[in-house]
């Protein structure tokens, strides 16, 4: 192969091999360097959209900080006085905080990238059931003496499978807990430790998002990054969170591939993500589309998003039970189609209209 015939480089556009002297090319280069490549085609209107996004997404981070703090309190209340009311409140608060996390999951840059925080919040996909095995191991009773309660410090230093919402879901819903009392000292200490870790991480995220504002607003490439985040969320919604467990991706339906299969809360979490798009993303998107005279696309996106939310909220069950009920399965399929249409709107039509190209290598991480 290296012994092939010698071949001269023949540029297709030789006029681009400028005959300009070097000095002439250096001056504009200095100006060009002040902007990242993706920013050069953007208008200043994008800065206004980023301002809107920073505010709206900040509201979602603040909501997550509040609801995880309430979850921590609910865990503490339950462990102090375990009864039906405190348990119901705990379950409801877990779901509320988990949905608030889904709402902000479209942000995959900035403070969430620090220390793998997204994984700390939610270890998923979990094809090897690491959550199950790690939590079962945490809950092992010592063969001699009393179990040592688990501290938040233990969880702060633990692996991501033990730190987030799925770990709490194990405590609240896994069938292994049928034989345990959640209110016993060991499980309750674990419940409070994980809740505390989630609350602290969420509070740090909210603060860091505010501090991140100057950098976010000053860096043009975050316009594209924010659009990419929403596009990535819709990819994941259609393919991973609905398509794979529903058997739409070439392998049989399998409810263990769904998020939150233990609690059957998968569709409620999808609704949380869709609400996040509506509150945190759509208003900023409208600003950009209007500045590109693409108001109709903004209207279409918001209408399709609203329809998709309605469909998600009309479902009474999640994927786990839905797979066993023809009527529910038909409804899940409709949701899948609604999400696919939403994805097509954003990831194709709107992306093309805005000239947004998704990098193969820029998102590679290798």
């Amino acid at each position, binding site marked *: 192969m290296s012994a092939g015939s010698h071949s001269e*480089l023949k540029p297709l556009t030789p006029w681009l091999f400028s005959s300009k002297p070097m000095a002439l090319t250096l001056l504009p280069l200095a100006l060009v360097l002040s902007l990242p490549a993706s920013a050069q085609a953007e208008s200043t209107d994008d800065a206004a959209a980023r301002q809107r996004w920073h505010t709206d997404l900040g509201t979602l981070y603040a909501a997550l900080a509040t609801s995880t703090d309430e979850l921590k309190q609910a865990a503490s209340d339950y462990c102090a006085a375990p009864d039906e009311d405190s348990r119901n409140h705990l379950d409801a608060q877990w779901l509320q905080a988990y949905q608030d996390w889904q709402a902000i999951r479209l942000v995959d840059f900035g403070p969430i990238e620090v220390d793998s925080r997204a994984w700390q919040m939610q270890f998923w996909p979990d094809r090897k059931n690491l959550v199950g095995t790690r939590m079962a191991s945490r809950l092992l009773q010592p063969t001699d003496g009393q179990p040592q309660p688990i501290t938040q410090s233990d969880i702060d230093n633990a692996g991501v499978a033990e730190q987030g919402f799925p770990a709490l879901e194990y405590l609240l819903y896994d069938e292994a807990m049928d034989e345990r009392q959640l209110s016993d000292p060991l499980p309750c200490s674990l419940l409070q430790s994980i809740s505390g870790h989630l609350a602290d991480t969420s509070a740090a995220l909210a603060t860091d998002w505010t501090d991140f504002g100057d950098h976010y607003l000053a860096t043009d490439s975050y316009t594209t990054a924010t659009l990419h985040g929403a596009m990535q969320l819709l990819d994941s919604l259609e393919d991973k969170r609905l398509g794979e467990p529903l058997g739409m991706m070439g392998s049989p339906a399998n409810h263990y591939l769904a998020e939150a299969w233990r609690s059957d809360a998968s569709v409620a979490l999808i609704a949380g993500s869709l609400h996040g798009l509506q509150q945190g993303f759509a208003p900023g998107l409208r600003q950009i589309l209007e500045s590109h005279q693409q108001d109709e696309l903004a209207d279409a996106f918001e209408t399709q998003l609203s329809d998709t939310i309605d469909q998600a909220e009309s479902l009474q069950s999640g994927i786990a039970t839905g797979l066993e009920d023809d009527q529910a399965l038909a409804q899940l399929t409709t949701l899948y189609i609604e999400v696919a249409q939403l994805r097509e709107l954003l990831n194709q039509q709107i992306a093309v209209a805005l000239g947004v190209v998704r990098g193969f*290598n820029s998102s590679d991480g290798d």
Partner: protein
Amino acid sequence: MHRLPCTDQQRRRLLKLGLGSLAAASMPLPLRAMASRYEGNTAQRRWFFSAVDNLDGQHFLAGLSRDASEHFLLPVPERCHGGCLRPGHTQAVLFARRPGTRLHVIDPRRRQPLHEIEAGDGHHFYGHGVFEPSGRRLYVTANRIDDAMGLIRVYDAEHGYRLEEDFELAGIGPHEVALMPDGETLAVALGGIKTHPDMGRIKLNLEDMDPALLLIDRRSGEVIERHRPSHHQLSCRHLDIGPEGEVIAGYQFQGPEWETDHPLIARRAADGKFTETDLPESLQTSLASYTASVAISHHAPSALITAPRAGRVVMINRHSGELMASPALDDAAGARCDGQGGYLVTSGTGRVSHLDMKGQLTTLNELPLRWDNHLT
């Protein structure tokens, strides 16, 4: 220059003394010529190779003619990353993308797959490897999953790519590996990031990473030099080696993305001196803490670093580190010197470009492919 008698041991001693180029100069000539032809002299090369995906997400090894007017695709079963050529043979090796467990040996002339080698139980590859000058031993970066020990796995290509031995690197996450001009020393970019296949690509040790640029004796596995970046979260990933034994390495910063002032390019000079390169602030900021490929010209005093998150390529003087040019190229990916002082550069958008000695980019072709990060 007249030849000096020089044993392996003497050569290692010279290397330690920072006289690598003298050691290289004193190599037996046939070996030296082969190393030179293989490592650097691409002037006669008609074909370059890269991992690619097509627009449907299917994975291939691509052969690309040097003027980008021709290409061919060979299907591979998974997304691949780096590759290398086997000296003296018409074989190309393509490595599965981390945490991949296979390497694919291909005959690009007949366009046929030859071997598929498994990383072995409890191991995965990181996506890069290099042959010794004779084309017999293949050195591949790998992870021993149990204890996250970074390894160079040594395969014997003359015996069906049989695993010969492992070199432990006393570190985590070796990524790109290349051979120094002496033909005896491996340069390894040690990323320092602990991952586990069960946990996907989650980074498990961001607090106590210990990345480095390593020089290793390829026969004994002894670590001859270990250069640590100026910050423990500067993951040393990719590198290339110049004709005099200088190494340029590209970092990826693993800390907060708003800390954009950490250096991303390092240089180990031929005399062993290790420095990091400062870029103008606006350019430095735009790189978004990330570099992809590194290529050094053997015919001009330059090195090229691709920066897909900036949508740029960065050309520096390989001796001084001074910025020469940084033209825009969306999703810039692989780069390789063209043997004439310029570079062939690929992009995830499918574009193949030529960068001339002055830093001017010209599009050679646009193909319906997503070129992966490395061009061989």
